[in-house]
């Protein structure tokens, strides 16, 4: 219950932002949701949304700034676009802040929301991220409902999409806001595509615009759309094949997925993509999947092709088309790790609906028992879904992960102290870590690994990043720091920050200026240069 209390508290503190973001995202359902629906459907959907929203907002309880280093760049771009909106120079701002493409759609939408709701940018990023997460299971719910008209199965699929695995929600800890928003738009597109069988020109234009917007939000969504479309065409073709042919195709499909899964497991970096999904929930889906194949073959073929193509993209380099990104693959590991929940949740939903229909078929000979057995069956499945949600939610972490929530209480004080006490031209050393997302490459870049990355955006002081493994007591390093005209060094007690013990070995070089329980600022002394 504490978690709901935290959610309500966060809602009361940020209700304007929550309502604003909810309204904006709800607009996407205008063309993909029919107004006439059963009352039980409406109540289930509304209750699920409200409960999810409160659970997601609990994340905001103790977080000061959006997590991880990606967020700093998002903040910079959103603020620049915000200035552009305010000074009517948006086009100039856009070309200045994003000389290389960087999820412009997300930043435009976030800046517009920040402007219209009069919010602080970091707060808007945090709230918007959680609202997007709340919305992500809704299209899954609708997709299953539209195809099966079975409420427990739709609810089960939505629960899987929201809480079955620690992805996609964990991606907010990596600051992957554009990817999450892009995935939501991809789901909406799929929903619209599936709903409108008879497409008129207006619908076609809408779908085209949707694809364009989703691609601007996150480029890789275009790959997802292509994968989904190809999978759908393949699944459609297979429908008319003979039983023998279908059996052969399913064997080949499963074997190919298995081979790719093995290859991914072999690579220490790629295998992280599967890590969130190695749990009992996936096992449950595996058990239900034969029912999905039996009763919803076309949808199941689509899902299996979709999974296979997702895995394949991890091995397709883009160097031939994009020479400026020689180490990239069509979809990168974190993106596949985030999106895998989607086909699995659908498979779970269709699996449960398939089981329901199989039981229906079994009870068909006893016609007089039909009505009674239907009520019993529905009750049983609702109990199953409720039990599933209880055990899933019990073990689910709704709060920020220690891995990536850089900024703590002490950091906020240190930033303020630094802003009020150090000269404007001060240069501060901050900690970084080597990042390598793509396997089989030697290249990696240095990225921030503690709260120091927020010094420049919040105080305007220049920061210089070096590896957190820096050997501070060495004369060579000390001279290098002097040469770079470093004035201060920023440390906190996160695992990838600089080590206190290293600096304390040489008090004549590094003087502790600010000491807080989990953050410190050291001043570099005895450098021969004069500022």
């Amino acid at each position, binding site marked *: 219950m504490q978690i709901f209390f935290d959610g309500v508290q966060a809602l009361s503190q940020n209700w304007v932002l929550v309502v604003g973001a909810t309204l904006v995202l709800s607009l996407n359902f205008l063309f993909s949701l029919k107004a006439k629906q059963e009352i039980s459907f409406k109540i289930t959907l509304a209750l699920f949304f409200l409960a999810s929203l409160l659970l997601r907002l609990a994340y905001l309880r103790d977080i*000061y700034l959006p997590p991880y280093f990606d967020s700093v760049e998002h903040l910079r771009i959103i603020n620049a676009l915000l200035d552009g909106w305010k000074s009517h120079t948006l086009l100039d701002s856009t070309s200045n802040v994003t000389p290389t493409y960087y999820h412009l759609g997300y930043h435009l939408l976030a800046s517009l929301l920040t402007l219209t709701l009069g919010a602080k940018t970091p707060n808007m990023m945090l709230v918007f991220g959680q609202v997007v997460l709340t919305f992500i299971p809704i299209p899954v719910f609708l997709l299953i409902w539209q195809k099966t008209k079975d409420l427990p199965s739709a609810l089960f699929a939505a629960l899987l999409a929201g809480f079955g695995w620690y992805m996609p929600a964990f991606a907010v800890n990596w600051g992957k806001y554009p990817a999450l928003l892009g995935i939501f738009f991809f789901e909406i597109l799929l929903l619209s595509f599936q709903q409108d069988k008879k497409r008129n020109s207006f619908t076609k234009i809408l779908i085209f615009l949707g694809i364009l917007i989703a691609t601007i939000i996150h480029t890789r969504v275009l790959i997802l759309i292509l994968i989904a479309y190809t999978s759908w065409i393949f699944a459609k073709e297979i429908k008319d094949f003979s039983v023998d042919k279908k059996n052969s195709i399913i064997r080949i499909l499963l074997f190919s997925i298995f081979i790719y899964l093995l290859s991914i497991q072999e690579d220490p970096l790629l295998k992280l993509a599967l890590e969130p999904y190695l749990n009992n929930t996936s096992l449950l889906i595996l058990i239900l999947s034969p029912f999905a194949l039996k009763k919803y073959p076309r949808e199941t073929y689509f899902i299996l092709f979709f999974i296979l193509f997702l895995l394949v993209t991890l091995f397709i380099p883009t160097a031939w088309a994009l020479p400026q990104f020689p180490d990239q693959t069509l979809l990168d590991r974190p993106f596949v790790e985030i999106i895998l929940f989607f086909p699995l949740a659908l498979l779970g939903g269709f699996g449960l609906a398939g089981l329901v229909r199989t039981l229906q078929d079994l009870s068909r000979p006893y016609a007089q028992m039909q009505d009674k057995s239907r009520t019993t069956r529905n009750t049983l499945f609702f109990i199953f879904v409720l039990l599933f949600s209880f055990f899933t939610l019990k073990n689910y972490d709704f709060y920020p992960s220690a891995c990536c929530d850089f900024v703590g209480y002490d950091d906020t*004080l240190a930033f303020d102290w630094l802003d009020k006490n150090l000269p404007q031209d001060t240069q501060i050393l901050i900690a970084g870590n080597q990042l390598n997302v793509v396997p089989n490459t030697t290249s990696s870049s240095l990225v921030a690994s503690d709260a120091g990355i927020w010094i420049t955006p919040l105080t305007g002081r220049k920061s210089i990043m070096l590896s957190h493994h820096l050997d501070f007591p060495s004369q060579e390093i000390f001279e290098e720091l002097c040469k770079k005209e470093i004035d201060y060094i920023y440390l906190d007690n996160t695992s990838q920050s600089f080590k206190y013990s290293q600096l304390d070995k040489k008090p004549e070089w590094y003087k502790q200026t600010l000491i807080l329980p989990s953050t410190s600022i050291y001043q570099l002394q005895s450098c021969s240069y004069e500022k």
Partner: protein
Amino acid sequence: MKKIFFLILVSLLLLSACSSAPAPQKESSPTPLPSLPYCNEDDTDICLEGFGQESEEQTIILLKANNQNCRDIYLLVDEDNTFTCLQTEEFPINIYCSGLLFQNEEEIFIEVYSNLNEKLIAQGEFTIQYGAYHAPPNLQAPTSYPNYPNYPN
């Protein structure tokens, strides 16, 4: 009429809840002053986060004020040492107060006063522990969540 009655009743209840924390103390009132708790014990109004040092010359007392009425404050430490307090610009609930340097493990008595009306808001006795929290760990913090890999490895 019923609606108005309920509205008044609710307003009164809300008002009483709002004014309960920093209520001015009447001389004759027997109500004891609110104590200054550690933040991981109770962070409802104003609480203590810990202690720090500035250039080995000053002690910094770290506070958090979730109650808006408790943010414009100053401290009196051991009755006659005044600590001036600053709210952080970006996160006004976080407050730090600087003053005379005290030694580690020294016991001090902190009184929190409002700058607006000089009223005593909270008080408490603490042992200075530089670089560490003194209170027991927050038991509400989730502990069972698996140790997920740092991104990307």
